[in-house]
């Protein structure tokens, strides 16, 4: 039984803060979608089927703008290419005897946050751990969207603005403890941040989309890490 499985329960517990952190972001998504003319039920359907922040925000903005389907698909794909790297990293962390069907199932729940928590676990991870970890964030994402879609006009703009920082604050909470313990991690973070800043502010480089700049910054920083700070116990 899944509910008796200690791995599942442990994952479920780890998912609680992610779910609560997702709620305000999903809430903002619900507001964005409905204020752009998308029916609340469809906004929730987007959250249930996409379960991703940046990709579905961008895709939904394009739907609202009336962009062609090809452009919507391509933009979303580029933003989501980073999941290739995350999924690859998790493939090395998942117990090797996990079946392909189970792998295909839990890969649906890989998000920046579930990935980070799973990847930062000390030991190998199991299918039931991943199911537990994904469970609450998935419903937090959907419920937050539904709430945002329903009450979108009631909330003052200031609160909406303030909630925009939630995801990034969660990212910071995931990075900083690792950076405190390891100079290598600190160096990798510095390289990644420098490159993404270049792509944001340097003329010419600014044309590169956010999706690609994340991928390039991640690849370059991790390459530098593997060359200059190879890990001992791997």
């Amino acid at each position, binding site marked *: 039984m899944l509910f008796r499985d200690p791995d599942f329960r442990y994952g479920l517990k780890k998912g609680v803060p992610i779910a609560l*952190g997702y709620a305000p972001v999903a809430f903002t998504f619900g507001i964005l979608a409905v204020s752009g003319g998308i029916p609340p039920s469809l906004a929730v*359907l987007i959250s249930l*089927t*996409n379960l*991703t922040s*940046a990709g579905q925000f961008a895709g939904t903005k394009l739907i609202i703008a009336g962009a062609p389907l090809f452009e*919507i698909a391509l933009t979303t794909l580029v933003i*989501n290419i*980073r*999941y*290739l*790297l*995350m*999924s690859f*990293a*998790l*493939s*090395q962390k998942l117990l090797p005897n996990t079946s392909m069907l189970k*792998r*295909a199932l*839990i*890969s649906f729940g890989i998000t*920046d*946050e579930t990935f*980070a928590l799973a990847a930062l676990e000390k030991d190998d991870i199991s299918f039931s751990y991943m199911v537990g970890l994904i469970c609450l964030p998935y419903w937090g994402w959907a419920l937050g969207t539904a709430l945002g879609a329903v009450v979108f006009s009631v909330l003052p703009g*200031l609160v909406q*603005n*303030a*909630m*925009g*920082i*939630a995801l*990034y*604050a*969660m*990212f*910071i*909470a*995931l*990075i*900083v*403890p690792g950076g405190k313990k390891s100079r290598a991690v600190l160096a*990798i*973070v510095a*390289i*990644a*941040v420098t490159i*993404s800043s270049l792509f*944001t*502010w340097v003329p010419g480089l600014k044309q590169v989309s*956010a999706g690609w700049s*994340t991928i390039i*910054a*991640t690849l370059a*920083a*991790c390459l530098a890490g593997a*060359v200059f700070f*190879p*890990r001992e116990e*791997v």
Partner: protein
Amino acid sequence: MSRILAAVFLMAVVTYIPRALPMTFIKKRLTSRFVRSFLYYVPYAALAAMTFPAILYSTGDLTSALIGMGVALVLAFYEKGLLIVALGAIAAVFFSQILL
């Protein structure tokens, strides 16, 4: 309506594919120290690249974003956990936008 449904379907597919391909098909453990070191750093690099400088544009004005980021960094330094860091940053942004 059917155009939106088609778009949602396409978005779901192109979101699922990059998530599923490596994890579903790479069952072998790679032994290369280089590759394993590379993958160990992926969460830190990817989250860092996504956070900065995007966080500066996440609240509508630079000052409140900087204050929110500062609060998040301090709370994270003392390892306060995901939720406290997120709520602390939201509160910091909210009050700095009211007061400043």
